[in-house]
């Protein structure tokens, strides 16, 4: 093959040569005819007639050259663009609908990519990362691992390349007179090496820095912290930064764009595991096998499956259980993929994003149905054009190719627009998710996979768009099509049945989406008004972190007492109390194995209910009733015997026959006496199953970072200002965290529902819009094609109102059919929402009713204009045309 033939210059020469060759042919034929005695004029005309269609001859000859596809493509593209420019209404509408369809999908997949599948920027080989999750046999919750257990796994597992601890933590840094909360991670020494991230300045951690209680106060800081807080100081290494009261030496700066290995917050500093006590509450835990605080992941060796690794790790867990029954009884270790990581936002968002993917696909289907409809209309409108092109010798294959090229232009424009939509929406999730005062980091990743998916959708839709109009085009019967077509009748004919079918599909899918959105709204309403077992009205809370400010135990206690007295003295404050962990916090409650006197646990049962450290008045402030026994008092201090208040479930479980009051259990080597029974409440979420829980006095189990709960009649703004003033009066170096009302705080915990509602709401709205456009298109086309029939009816005595009713009835039938199908689809598919629904039946009549009303209103709006136009038909004109 001669490659030169593909070059444009060589092509142009060939073109000229062909023209010359054919011209010579004609001249010769002419000359011969003249020689035979024809007049020159006749000779020219006859030679031409004999020659046939010059353009066609050139065309078919050129096609022999081969390698023409590029040229032909350019020609098709030019022609396609011209055709699209000629009907801008169609083009804009088609591109708009498809942009919404492709954009929705690109956005959702880019979130799935960036949040679930490959969440950690700059980290290599994330598909081989698995999360180590602690489980208790027969229970649903999860924990981390203890540090000694992690070390055993690291030593004994052979299928892992590396085992890494990356426990999330945080500290408060003073920034002027305002406290800034920054997120950090407590990591094992191999962290940076294992994830393949090299600090841009300085170094990562050395193996020795992992052990020794508080022995290695060194820190690697994030690039952003280096840039913003230290103004990109080139001499940063070796400088000291006070963190949680301990001066830390800065030994490294992480590369730009690296946000740690956590889904939700951007991590800005990393400290070695030896500093655990400084950054994690509950004392020194590196030697303690009973406290499962470690969040960790492992990297599988290449070619190892998760199932193989799981088998090995289960064996290790079993051995640990046999070796250390008093701490590990019933403990299992589960390997979880990154997208089901329970330690960060991944697991909470994964079901929501799965729903979003389905919903986005619905939107794409609706958009495609819409564009197919538009194309069908256009292809009938273009029948004459196609017929003429066939008549002057265009091949059917060429016609189809032309149509596919036009489709390609539309879908390529839409794919570009869709990616733009995805890009603009990349931070949508972080914006929708309510934050508790810490910046969120939930970026979408628009990588080659997202591009590939968009290109795939684009290709599939192009094919669809090429083929839909090509079907009637390639069926054109030349003879009969030259004659003009007669107008279609309302309903009836085959092609209007196809179009009606597409509208049915659109209406039913949007109805199903409306139902889903409605169910989520009802769930959110139910959650907002549900009682979590404590009072949310009039209660406000704000964190006071003295550990980060470097307070020791004695100073913490004094500060906490003084602050509580000052707050209680404020006007409008009815009561105030501390708790280490506020209800519905993202922070885990404490948990540790306990031994209950008089209770014999089952063979593999290890009682370790969660508990919270609270001050006296906590129950009054939150309105949790004490059912029997007493509240904590000032007398329950370090000198007195440790006491506890248990909830109803715990009382019933461990003291099934007798009175729990006076019962004794052993916690961390201390004998604790039960002095009260509290009413059941929700502790973490509204959706949780009732669980065992108890409270101990903060005075006897002290903590440096606590949450102040205040019941007051003051508005939140005034309360926050007053609180800040009191805290500053005690120590200008301490600042309270952002103040929330309890109602807000509880609502934030329903963020998965909020996100789902936002996404389904947006997509449902789009779907309704697209379906309305589709219905409008079908109705107005039917009316414009049915002019003759309408005119005839009018001439035969139909009133304008009859015609109006005729068209409206047609629209109503389509809508009703779509709603019926949609209702069936909704009943079948709302199970998908499962875990997101709260106290609402998936077949809630109110939701179905409202969705029906919305659909009916939209279809009324879509049909009104065409119906009005039908009613104004001028019979004289309609029949004449």
């Amino acid at each position, binding site marked *: 093959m001669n490659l030169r033939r593909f070059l444009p210059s060589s092509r142009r020469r060939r073109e000229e*040569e*062909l023209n*010359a*060759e*054919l011209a*010579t*042919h004609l*001249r*010769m*034929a002419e*000359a*011969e005819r003249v020689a035979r005695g024809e007049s020159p004029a006749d000779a020219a005309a006859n030679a031409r007639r004999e*020659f*046939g*269609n010059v353009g*066609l*001859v050139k065309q*078919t*000859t050129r*096609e*022999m*050259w*081969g390698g023409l596809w590029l040229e032909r493509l350019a020609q098709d593209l030019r022609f396609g663009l011209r055709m699209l420019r000629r009907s801008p209404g169609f083009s804009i509408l088609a591109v708009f609908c498809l942009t919404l369809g492709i954009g929705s999908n690109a956005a959702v997949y880019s979130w799935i990519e960036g949040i679930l599948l490959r969440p950690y920027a700059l980290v290599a080989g994330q598909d081989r990362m698995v999360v180590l999750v602690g489980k208790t046999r027969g229970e649903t919750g999860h924990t981390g691992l203890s540090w000694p257990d992690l070390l055993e796994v690291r030593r004994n597992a052979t299928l892992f390349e590396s085992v890494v601890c990356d426990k999330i933590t945080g500290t408060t840094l003073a920034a002027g007179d305002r406290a800034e909360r920054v997120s950090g991670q407590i990591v094992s020494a191999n962290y940076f090496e294992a994830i393949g991230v090299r600090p841009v300045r300085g170094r990562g951690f050395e193996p020795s820095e992992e052990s020794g209680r508080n022995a290695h106060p060194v820190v690697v800081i994030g690039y952003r912290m280096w840039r913003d807080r230290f103004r990109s100081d080139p001499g940063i290494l070796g400088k000291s930064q006070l963190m949680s009261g301990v001066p830390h030496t800065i030994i490294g700066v992480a590369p730009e764009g690296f946000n740690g290995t956590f889904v939700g917050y951007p991590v800005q500093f990393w400290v070695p595991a030896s500093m655990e006590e400084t950054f994690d509450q509950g004392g020194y835990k590196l030697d303690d096998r009973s406290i499962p605080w470690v969040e960790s992941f492992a990297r599988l060796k290449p070619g190892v499956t998760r199932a193989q690794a799981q088998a090995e790790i289960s064996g290790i867990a079993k051995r640990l259980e046999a070796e250390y029954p008093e701490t590990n009884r019933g403990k299992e270790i589960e390997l979880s993929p990154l997208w089901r990581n329970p330690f960060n936002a991944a697991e909470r968002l994964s079901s929501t994003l799965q729903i979003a993917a389905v919903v986005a696909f619905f939107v794409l289907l609706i958009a495609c149905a819409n564009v197919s409809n538009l194309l069908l209309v256009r292809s009938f409108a273009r029948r004459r054009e196609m017929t003429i092109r066939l008549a002057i010798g265009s091949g059917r294959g060429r016609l189809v190719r032309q149509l596919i090229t036009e489709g390609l232009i539309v879908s390529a424009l839409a794919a570009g627009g869709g990616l733009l939509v995805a890009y603009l929406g990349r931070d949508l999730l972080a914006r929708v998710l309510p934050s508790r005062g810490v910046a969120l980091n939930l970026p979408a990743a628009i990588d080659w996979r997202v591009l590939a998916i968009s290109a795939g959708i684009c290709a599939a839709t192009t094919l669809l768009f090429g083929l839909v109009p090509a079907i009637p085009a390639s069926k054109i019967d030349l003879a009969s099509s030259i004659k003009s077509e007669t107008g279609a009748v309302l309903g009836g004919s085959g092609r209007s049945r196809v179009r009606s079918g597409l509208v049915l599909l659109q209406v039913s899918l949007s109805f199903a989406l409306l139902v889903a959105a409605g169910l989520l709204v009802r769930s959110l309403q139910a959650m907002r008004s549900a009682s979590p077992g404590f009072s949310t009205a009039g209660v406000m809370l704000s964190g006071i972190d003295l550990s980060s400010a470097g307070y020791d135990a004695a100073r913490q206690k004094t500060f906490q007492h003084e602050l509580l007295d000052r707050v209680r003295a404020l006007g409008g404050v009815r009561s105030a109390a501390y708790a280490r962990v506020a209800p519905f916090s993202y922070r885990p409650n404490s948990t540790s194995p306990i031994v209950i006197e008089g209770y014999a646990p089952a063979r593999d049962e290890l009682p370790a209910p969660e508990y919270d450290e609270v001050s006296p008045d906590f129950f009054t402030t939150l309105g949790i009733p004490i059912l029997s026994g007493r509240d904590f008092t000032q007398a329950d201090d370090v000198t007195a015997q440790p006491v506890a208040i248990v909830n109803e479930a715990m009382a019933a479980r461990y003291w099934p026959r007798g009175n729990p009051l006076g019962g004794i259990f052993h916690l961390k080597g201390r004998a604790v006496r039960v002095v009260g029974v509290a009413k059941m409440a929700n502790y973490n979420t509204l959706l949780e199953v009732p669980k065992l829980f108890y409270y101990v006095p903060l005075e006897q189990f002290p903590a440096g970072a606590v949450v102040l709960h205040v019941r007051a009649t003051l508005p939140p703004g005034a309360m926050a200002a007053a609180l800040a003033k009191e805290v500053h009066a005690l120590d200008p170096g301490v600042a309270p965290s952002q103040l929330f009302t309890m109602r807000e705080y509880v609502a934030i915990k329903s963020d998965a529902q909020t996100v789902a509602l936002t996404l389904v709401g947006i997509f449902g709205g789009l779907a309704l819009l697209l379906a309305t456009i589709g219905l409008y298109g079908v109705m107005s086309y039917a009316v414009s094609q049915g002019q003759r029939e309408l005119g005839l009816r009018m001439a035969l005595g139909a009133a304008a109102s009859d015609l109006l009713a005729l068209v409206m009835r047609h629209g109503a039938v389509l809508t009703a059919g779509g709603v019926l199908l949609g209702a069936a689809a909704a009943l079948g598919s709302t199970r998908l929402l499962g875990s997101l629904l709260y106290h609402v039946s998936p077949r809630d009549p109110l939701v179905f009713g409202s969705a029906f009303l919305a659909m009916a209103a939209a279809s009324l709006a879509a049909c009104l204009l065409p119906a009005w136009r039908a009613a104004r038909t001028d019979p004289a004109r309609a029949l004449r045309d």
Partner: protein
Amino acid sequence: VKKVDPAASRIEILQGTLDLIILQTLRWGPRHGYGIAQMIRAGSGDVLQVETGSLYPALHRLELKGAIAADWEVSENNQRVRVYRLTAAGRRQLVAERSKWDRLAGAIAELMAPPSESGS
């Protein structure tokens, strides 16, 4: 193939056959497109009519396959014409097609002959 009034019932040539006819025509020497068309018509007693819409695509296709080659020359009446000639490959193809055609023509003649004449 029946023969009535040659002018009124010219027969269009099938695609595969056209290649053979063109190659055969060029055996007598190089010729331009118009000349080939004229020669086919004359050579068949005005029965075979080559449409230009078939002739030029066929010429260019054969050229691409290397069976014929083309050059620009100046004709006797001073016109620049594109002249086609047979190549070695073209000669080989002609031989092959020719024997194929002979077999086909024989077979069709056999089929068309009245049963009484074809023996038995």
